């Protein structure tokens, strides 16, 4: 009975991703005793854990979009980092009214945000069109915006870093009024809940999985697989736009050269760490979200451990290799075989 319930837990989809996250966090218990301490400092929550959850927000949002794209098209959108930069550029440029640095908004906040989201949706639609309609491999199709996106951003900001030094713009990357929890945490949670609701309450989640498993078969049973693939790219673009606005709000500027730099790779990694198959098909949104938090927990842990900057990537790589190996089907079947052997030996011994 007891054994069965343990087996049930270990065979759950999210078991391994959660174990990895917990393992990364537990390292801190030994190395950084104060890691889990959360206090109220200066009227806001303060502590390493808050940092992890806060800094992971953009990555969580990107990972959600990346999961959908991966599931439906069996490929990844590598342009999300650049799309973040485009959204940030559009948002800041409208708010600043074309000036390099402003201390007063030149246009209403709502307008700028809607324009930024629209721009990122357009980027997503472009990717979606190439992948779904033109049947270009996702990696190749999104390579276009991956390279051109930051150029477009530069064009929008005229090659300058546009600063919006207005407190109301700092809200998205900072705090709302007197609420002690950073806004990005809320935004990430809201995005995850909304996307989850859409997937669960409508049949979209199921459609995405079936298109990912077999597009032709899905079409034959009456699903518009082209449209579904297209939609996932648009959603991914919009989410990248939201992440871009958060990232830009944190630094109250549009630094198109650096916003979201290399974040697309982390987002893909988050999807993989979440136990999702990068070849498409069945997916777990929560797995990717946990994967995203794991990546940030790892980064913050390494900072807290005072690892030297030039060694940082090495440690990251080692941990990632271990986690990915643990989750690989080959390794898992190996473990299962070993277990079966042991069981068989035990049975024989019992005779």
């Amino acid at each position: 009975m007891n054994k069965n319930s343990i087996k049930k837990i270990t065979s759950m989809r999210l078991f391994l991703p959660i174990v990895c996250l917990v393992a990364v966090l537990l390292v801190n218990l030994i190395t950084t005793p104060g890691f889990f301490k959360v206090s109220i400092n200066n009227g806001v929550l303060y502590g390493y854990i808050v940092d992890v959850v806060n800094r992971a927000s953009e990555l969580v949002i990107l990972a959600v979009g990346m999961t959908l794209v991966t599931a439906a098209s069996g490929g990844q959108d590598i342009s999300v980092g650049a799309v973040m930069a485009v959204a940030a550029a559009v948002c800041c440029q409208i708010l600043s009214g074309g000036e390099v640095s402003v201390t007063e908004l030149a246009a209403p906040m709502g307008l700028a945000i809607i324009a930024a989201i629209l721009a990122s949706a357009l980027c997503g639609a472009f990717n979606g069109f190439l992948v779904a309609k033109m049947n270009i491999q996702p990696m190749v199709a999104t390579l276009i915006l991956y390279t051109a996106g930051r150029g477009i951003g530069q064009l929008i900001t005229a090659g300058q870093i546009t600063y919006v030094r207005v407190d109301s713009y700092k809200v998205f990357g900072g705090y709302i009024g007197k609420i002690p929890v950073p806004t990005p945490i809320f935004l990430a949670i809201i995005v995850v809940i909304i996307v989850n609701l859409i997937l669960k309450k409508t049949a979209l989640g199921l459609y995405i999985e079936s298109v990912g498993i077999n597009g032709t078969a899905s079409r034959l049973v009456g699903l518009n697989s082209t449209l579904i693939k297209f939609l996932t790219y648009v959603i991914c673009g919009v989410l990248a736009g939201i992440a871009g606005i958060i990232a830009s709000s944190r630094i109250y500027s549009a630094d198109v050269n650096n916003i979201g730099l290399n974040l697309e790779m982390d987002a893909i990694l988050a999807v993989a760490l979440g136990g999702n198959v990068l070849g498409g098909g069945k997916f777990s949104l929560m797995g990717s979200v946990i994967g995203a938090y794991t990546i940030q927990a790892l980064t913050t842990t390494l900072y807290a451990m005072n690892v030297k900057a030039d060694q940082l990537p090495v440690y990251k790589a080692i941990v990632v290799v271990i986690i990915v190996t643990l989750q690989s089907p080959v390794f898992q079947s190996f473990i299962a075989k070993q277990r079966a052997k042991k069981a068989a030996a035990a049975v024989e011994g019992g005779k």
Partner: protein
Amino acid sequence: MKKRFLGVLLSVAMVAAVLAGCGSSGAKETAAPAGSETEAASEAASGETEAAGNTGDVITVGFSQVGAESDWRTANSESMKSTFSTENGYNLIFDDAQQKQENQIAAIRNFIQQEVDYIVLAPVTESGWDTVLQEAKDAEIPVIIVDRMVDVSDDSLYTAWVGSNFKLEGQKACEWLKQYAAAKNMSEVNIVDIQGTIGASAQIGRTEALNEAVEANGWNLLAQQTGEFTQAKGQEVMESMLKQYDNINVVYCENDNEAFGAIEAIKAAGKTVGPDGDILVMSFDTTKQGITDTLSGDIIVNTECNPLHGPRVEQIIKQLQAGETPEKQAYVEEGIYAHGSDVASVSIDGTDYEVTEVTQDVVDARAY
């Protein structure tokens, strides 16, 4: 069937590759809106070259610039243009390479064909210059390298190099801190270092200077971590360091953007920056925004990384004109800007460098 599918896939991939190619070149074009202006200017300049032609003592200089990727670079180009103006007796042929080495090589070959008197090169990368510089040498045209160095097998392929002395910048900043700490009776100096992108020459020089100063002065270097020269990373790293150490009183940021991020993080943690605050923020580059923060005291000292290479290059050209041999490595003059006047000058290896107190006039005079 299978073969046909493969064929379709291949052709699609090829089209995509072509598209992607267009995309990237589009990016490069759009990346340099200032570049197009400068290009127009260069066309105008080369037009003048032909017009001014063989008037005798007009010196023709060909300048191959990397591109216009930052304010610093724009200021660098402007410095060259204002120094080598027609009024000063020069013809400047300006070429914007849009971040591509092949464009720079083509530009140098053009300069050789046009028989310019001097070639000035701001290389995009360090390697791959041997052949084209040999051609320039064969044509007996002196080549002056600015900003980044070139990595060539034979040193005689270029006449001189003009650029920043990053280590000296770091030494000046550290010497300033030493004197400031003495003037303010700081009982102990607990530093954290937010490094630049690891491996960048600016990071190497500035970190090295700090490490030596820490050793020599008995300061506590609590932590060293890279902020990758960006505001976002600088902020994240500072956040983490503040949680680890409660006694930080100096932050050594290796450029202005990192300093902006660090200041945000310090303020968010409920601590204060500035001469009367909890933490002193030191920075490099002295961009206009950076020096504005120095005026307010948020950045206590800001050491310059000077993009104005023009005058130094002109000095070398004048030496060559007079038949003298200029020094192989020439550093541009770089200032150090501080909030308040607690330290009047710093002395490195016997040379005194004046510390400029930042005033509104100093901020207004900054062009970049």
